[in-house]
């Protein structure tokens, strides 16, 4: 059969299928759309993939444009890092949980701090009442970090810290704990979230206005390039943007736009792109729409590589490749029938792995109620171990490449992100868009649309608006944070303040203020403050005097 008649036969077959295909009475009256409300076709064929060029768009793992993954050998050589985000109550309780997880095969640590620590307040602040140790572990001074990492060799473990507006303080504490353990800062490995832009867009933990906040970040990038070279200085995060209600395309676009903003900020202070770009890392959500998520990760790597090489002229391939952490979607979990969350999380974890993540946190089933119990977090960790060892998905690299559907979705998400980049540029960049509330409004609108779809039953959430168990009585054990934690923490802070050299605290704080006013790198004087047990709030108070504070105009 010649080429023309073969094509005719294919076209005829397609036409026959189209004729037979019936959309008049969809199953359960469903709308065929992704979790981002993106319409999906009933069938994808080679026609959809016509414009895809294998070498240009897909290629090989470990090679530009990295669509298939950032390493040539991916999980066959090294599994993703199983890293459960945890921290609660007192530093001693958190230390105990870390030893529990490490004994059960967890490979890296990820610290969750409480809200006062995240926001720069000490445990004895009037703003901290009721919040100490509740969402994470309470840290006021270096003493607390010494307890959290007691018996854990910082020269051997990698640690991720979810901390943003106070990130440089916590990094300085980590470096100081390492000093006490005799581990030089050059050996430290880990990640600081340190992504202030997404705070203004989604997570909303800020102290200073955007400009000085970015200044603190570029200080820290320059300091790490010299003294903590293996540290991932920013984890540019889409996770929280997604949790706030964004679609997959918005998560992708706003996160990468934030990334480009940091690159431009560092270039503006005179850094060479190849000195800092290899230490930038990313953090994405894994929501429930399996293929859309996988396509999102693939598109993200390709967009980053293309922009870093073509637009920002990075020459080192390490600057082109996007490494990322994934966490399953907390916002997808339900309080109803909480055991169902184990299943949701397993699908989401699988999508993260098929999308080529470098590390993964799988949520625990009880997290719509509280921080997880030991039992729940162990199940979540086991879920990852099952994916890695039993499902076989890690046997081959990027197994969904070449799928007409996945490649089409990958292209469409890239195109949607590019449209957002144009819109953001037209509005004057990310900072201007934050100021105007544009990004926040896009996310809030998507969140409201999603909620309306649920209420109209255009979208089914098992146990919430269908398959509901009447008179459901949820009986799962929950972790309780004892109110005693707050008073104990305040007492221990008092003791630290009594035992330290208060003159030295004053003089190091004065030096920090002077450096901030002079526009010098604040990291070295900050480290001096930390070493003499200056508290977090003493530091943020001084920096607030220099930089001022940020207030968000309430937008609804």
């Amino acid at each position, binding site marked *: 059969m010649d080429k023309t008649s073969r094509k005719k036969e294919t076209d005829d077959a397609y036409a026959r299928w189209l004729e037979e295909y019936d959309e008049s009475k969809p199953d359960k009256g469903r709308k065929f759309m992704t979790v981002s409300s993106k319409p999906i076709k009933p069938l994808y064929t080679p026609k959809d993939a016509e414009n895809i060029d294998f070498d240009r768009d897909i290629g090989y793992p470990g090679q530009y444009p990295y669509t298939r993954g950032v390493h040539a050998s991916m999980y066959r050589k090294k599994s993703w890092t199983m890293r459960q985000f945890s921290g609660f109550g007192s530093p001693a309780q958190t230390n105990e949980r870390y030893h529990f997880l490490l004994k059960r095969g967890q490979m890296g640590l990820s610290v969750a701090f409480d*809200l006062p620590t995240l926001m720069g307040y000490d445990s004895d602040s009037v703003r901290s*009442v009721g*919040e100490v140790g509740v*969402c994470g572990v309470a840290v006021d001074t270096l003493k607390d970090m010494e307890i959290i990492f007691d018996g854990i060799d910082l020269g051997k473990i990698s640690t991720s810290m979810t901390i943003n507006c106070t990130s440089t303080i916590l990094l300085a504490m980590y470096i100081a704990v390492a000093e006490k353990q005799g581990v030089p800062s050059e050996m430290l490995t880990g990640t600081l979230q340190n992504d202030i832009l997404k705070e203004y867009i989604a997570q909303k933990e800020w102290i200073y206005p955007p400009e000085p906040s970015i200044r603190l970040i570029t200080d820290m990038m320059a300091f790490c390039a010299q003294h903590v070279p293996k540290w991932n200085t920013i984890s540019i995060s889409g996770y929280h943007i997604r949790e706030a209600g964004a679609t997959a395309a918005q998560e992708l676009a706003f996160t990468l736009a934030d990334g480009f903003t940091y690159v431009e900020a560092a270039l503006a202070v005179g850094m060479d792109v190849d000195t800092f770009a290899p230490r930038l890392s990313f953090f994405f959500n894994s929501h429930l729409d399996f293929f859309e998520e996988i396509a999102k990760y693939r598109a993200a790597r390709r967009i980053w590589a293309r922009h870093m090489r073509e637009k920002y002229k990075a020459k080192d391939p390490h600057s082109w490749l996007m490494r990322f952490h994934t966490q399953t979607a907390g916002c997808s979990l339900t309080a109803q029938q909480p055991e169902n969350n184990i299943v949701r999380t397993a699908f989401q974890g699988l999508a993260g792995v098929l999308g080529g993540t470098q590390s993964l946190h799988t949520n625990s089933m009880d997290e719509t109620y509280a921080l997880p119990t030991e039992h729940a977090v162990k199940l979540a960790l086991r879920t990852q171990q099952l994916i890695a060892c039993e499902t076989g998905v890690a046997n081959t690299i990027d197994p969904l490449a070449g799928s007409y559907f996945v490649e089409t979705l990958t292209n469409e998400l890239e195109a949607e992100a590019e449209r957002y980049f144009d819109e953001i540029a037209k509005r004057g960049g990310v900072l201007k868009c934050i100021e105007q509330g544009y990004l926040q409004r896009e996310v809030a609108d998507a969140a*409201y649309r999603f909620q309306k779809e649920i*209420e109209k039953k255009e979208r089914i959430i098992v146990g919430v608006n269908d398959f509901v168990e009447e008179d459901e009585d949820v009986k799962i054990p929950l972790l309780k944070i004892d109110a005693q934690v707050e008073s104990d923490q305040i007492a221990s802070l008092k003791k630290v303040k009594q035992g330290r050299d208060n003159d030295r605290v004053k003089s190091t704080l004065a030096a920090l203020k002077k450096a901030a006013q002079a526009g010098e790198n604040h990291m070295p004087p900050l480290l001096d403050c930390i070493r003499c047990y200056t508290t977090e709030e003493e530091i943020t108070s001084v920096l607030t005097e220099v930089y001022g504070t940020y207030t968000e105009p309430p937008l*609804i």
Partner: protein
Amino acid sequence: MERKFRILLAKPGLDGHDRGIKVIAAALRDAGFEVIYTGLRQTSEQVVAAAIQEDVDAVGLSILSGAHMTLFPMVLEGLRRNGADHILLFGGGIIADSEIQMLKDTGVSEIFTPGASTQDIVDYLNRVLPKIIKDEKII
């Protein structure tokens, strides 16, 4: 005089999770309520002052940080101290059933938890508010 119900929505404490409260604000507005949103990180004093100044019929608090057992009573106490306990206090968040009962016992009118529909909240306010505001005609 005809008027709409006025609702103050507030995020007290340090919690920054505002997806829920924004969805509620949009839904209440679409359902015909007048909605005032305080923005983030309000102290209980600020919430009480805003409620009185805006002369609202109800205050809705959203707390997802676990500090609800501290913050709800603080706002309630502030309303009482300022002679504004005619204002209905309701809220939502990650709150266990046993704690909901404790909050209701202290005077919080209703608590909505994850999975509640915005329609549930609209219906609740439309049912309860006319009972406490009798003198005026509400549209």
